[in-house]
């Protein structure tokens, strides 16, 4: 009695499986050694060290979709959301340098995981071949709407006169907000105490909105919903140029303080990947990002397009690493 519905289900399932398996057959296959000239001859895997749906993932999936068309091959996004991307970077560093494994690279995670010895990273800057930079999302400084601070200068002046009295949120020890505070102290002698919210930017926002912390530090893209709701007043952006999302907000550089901190997102292959391959992909991403329709798509999800080719990205990487390693002692010392 029991087996009749079961048998029907089984037969239906088998039919479905075989049909699907037939479809799948088409793109298996390709194998063997090849020269860079044939590239790409099979699917590319794009590692993303964060959860699906996050800003890094969103940006990577947008690129992957276009890259599939440009390179005429499949680009599969694989999320490895662990340890601030360290798992993804480790896997990338150990992958075959054949141009078929790529990873999203975010700053500061790609730099801090290397610099912080307690993390025991199995890779360093030389393990990667930078491909292209996609997004730069600078850190913005916000205060309560009724605050007396309006410009970076107001904030810096007050912090200079009352060292350690102001408190600002960060998203954890060694986060870019934490480095931002260290740089502020170094460059402008403005001493602001951090309150670390390793349990997420949501908790940081809650504490700020509840009036527990004076200053909210967050990426420009994360500020948008709060600005829309009228919950914050953004007084400064830590970048050399004004953000297209916040054209009226002064930068710290304008105010005369050399404080530039951002989280940026790009892509890299393992070191020793053939140069022609790196160049081909880098150029492809460049062409994709020149397309106004694509720019529009990125802006819509709150990502500020900022393309750098392989060479520029490598230089930017070295520069940022130097900046962070200089600040690291400051960040670590304050923990003791």
């Amino acid at each position, binding site marked *: 009695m029991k087996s009749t519905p079961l048998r029907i289900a*089984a037969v239906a399932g*088998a039919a479905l*499986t075989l049909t*699907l398996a037939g479809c799948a057959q088409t793109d298996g296959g390709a194998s063997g050694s090849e020269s860079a000239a044939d590239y790409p001859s099979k699917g590319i895997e794009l590692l993303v060290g964060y959860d699906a749906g996050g800003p890094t993932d969103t940006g990577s999936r947008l690129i992957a979709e276009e890259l599939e068309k440009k390179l005429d091959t499949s680009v599969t996004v694989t999320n490895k959301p662990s340890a601030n991307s360290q798992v993804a970077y480790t896997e990338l560093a150990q992958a075959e340098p054949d141009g078929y494994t790529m990873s999203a690279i975010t700053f500061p995670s790609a730099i801090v995981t290397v610099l912080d010895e307690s993390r025991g990273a199995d890779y360093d800057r030389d393990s990667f071949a930078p491909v292209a930079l996609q997004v730069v999302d600078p850190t913005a400084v916000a205060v309560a709407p009724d605050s007396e601070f309006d410009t970076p200068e107001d904030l810096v002046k007050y912090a200079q006169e009352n060292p350690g009295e102001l408190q600002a949120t960060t998203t954890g020890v060694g986060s870019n907000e934490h480095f931002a505070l260290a740089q502020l102290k170094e460059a402008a002698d403005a001493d602001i105490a951090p309150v670390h919210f390793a349990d997420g930017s949501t908790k940081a926002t809650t504490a700020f909105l509840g009036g527990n912390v004076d200053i909210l530090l967050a990426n420009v893209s994360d500020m948008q919903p709060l600005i829309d709701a009228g919950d914050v007043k953004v007084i400064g952006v830590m970048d050399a140029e004004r953000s297209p999302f916040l054209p009226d907000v002064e930068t710290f550089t304008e105010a005369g303080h050399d404080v530039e901190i951002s989280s940026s997102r790009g892509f890299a292959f393992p070191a020793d990947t053939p140069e022609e391959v790196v160049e081909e992909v880098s150029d492809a991403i460049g062409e994709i990002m020149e397309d106004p329709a694509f720019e529009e798509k990125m802006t819509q999800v709150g990502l500020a397009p900022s393309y750098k080719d392989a060479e520029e990205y490598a230089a930017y990487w070295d520069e940022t690493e130097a900046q962070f390693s200089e600040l690291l002692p400051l960040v670590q010392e304050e923990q003791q």
Partner: protein
Amino acid sequence: MNAEADTLVGDSQAAVERERRRRWLSIASAVVVTLVGAAAVIGSRTYPYWTPLGPGPGFFPRWLGGILVVCGLLWLVQVLRATRTTPARHADGTQEAVAQAILVPEDEAPEYSLPTVLAIVVSLCVLAATLEVLGYQIAMFLFVLFHLLVLGRRRLLLSLVLALVCSVGVFVVFTRFLTVPLPASSIPFLRDMGF
């Protein structure tokens, strides 16, 4: 079906056996809890206990470990005392009552069969170990086949079909339609065949 008849016949004996097993499991668990606590205390000794601003990274692990050690020992004493005060009067009312007071009422802990439990756990570990070697499709095919043919004693045809659906079918659906990547084989020969 036949298992039902078996349990009826050997009911009282099985109950005694289960009770005995459960007591040993309690003792073992209490020991493990104590050891885990001790390991936490020892493992956290390199983490700073206190910082100028308050508890450091080592504060909670050390206290939690300490609590576990104390509670584990207390539990051990409870179980052992209950064992000693119950003489070998198996399967009568008194013994049941004690068991209920210190452990679990009979109806709370469901029936399990130890060989099945072991088979499931081992087969899952084997599946995990072979997943990235053989690839999802082959490893899962063998796993489901084992469960249906060996553990479930299902007919061959049905088992083959279901195993195919769970392995190849699920692989195609997840990787193609849901874009959830599942592991491919790391053996080049198999990988080239599409596994």
